[in-house]
């Protein structure tokens, strides 16, 4: 099954506003909304980071696919949330809808618990838009 979600300009602007309010204002370095083909739909940064978002999205899509295959082996349909912890920076992945992932890159000034709460909030608001 190949999913396609098409966004119009207004939807993209609304999504950008949500991500800005819920995550960037919280102190997150950068957020990427992407599809599972590895395409970047929305990317926002707080100005302090300049990551190669296209490569990140391609690898994230691959990573998510690989982890979903692992989930299948142990009898789960998928793992809808992934978290990679680094010494300074960490990455949090969360599924938005079937074909969409939200990637959040944040440093140790942001608490994981609070971030998860805010990500859930942002996802709920984005789901209502699609």
């Amino acid at each position, binding site marked *: 099954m190949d999913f396609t979600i098409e*966004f119009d300009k207004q939807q*993209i602007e609304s999504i950008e506003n949500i991500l800005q309010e819920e995550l960037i204002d919280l102190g997150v370095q950068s957020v990427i909304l992407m*599809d599972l083909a590895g395409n*970047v739909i929305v990317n926002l940064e707080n100005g302090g980071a300049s990551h190669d978002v*296209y490569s990140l999205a*391609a*690898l994230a*899509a691959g990573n998510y696919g*690989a982890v979903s295959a692992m989930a299948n082996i142990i009898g789960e349909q998928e793992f809808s949330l992934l978290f990679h912890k680094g010494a300074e920076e960490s990455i949090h992945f969360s599924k938005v809808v079937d074909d969409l992932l939200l990637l959040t890159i944040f440093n140790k000034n942001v608490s994981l618990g609070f971030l998860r709460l805010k990500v859930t909030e942002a996802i709920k608001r984005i789901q209502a838009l699609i």
Partner: protein
Amino acid sequence: MALINPKKKEVQVKIVYYGPGRGGKTTNLEYINKKFKKRIQNEMVTVKTYGDRTLFFDFLPFDIGEIKGHSIKVQLYTVPGQVKYNATRRLVLRGVDGLVFVADSMDLRREMNIRSLQNLKENLETFNKSIFNIPLVLQYNKRDLEDEGIPILSVDTLERDLNSRLKAPSFPASAVKGDNVAATMKKIIALTVGSLRKKLE
């Protein structure tokens, strides 16, 4: 399916290099990366396993300019060619817009080419896509081996084996030397972007 961002006026196009293991898919991308270095801002990403074989995929993004007011970002991917990595190949094919099938001209690899092309056809079907109507270019790689006295298949044989029904554009090539690597890439970009033109109007 290419992603069109109406706000940024940007289109992301996914082109996948497919083919049997050790056929030269990664070498194609490496050559492109070297040759067009000035126009490629990002580093080529490659996930290799022990022994230099592609485990996951290679990824090379670059901009090719504007079409109908949209900036076009081309993203080249390769798949792992080894038979056992089929799940990964399917993953990379997700959302593909255009394909290059890199066949190995070596005499010994005749059967492998045919099997890999069949595997591509089946994998595309799982995404409800048909190999007959997706932009596709064939590349008959490793033509340079002839100079070293290694037996290779004639272009006619490769055409009969792989392209008799597809009738796709095809190029004899040497990825190691760079012969026809750029020509293959330009052809698939032209076909793929051409197929999107209507959507951009």
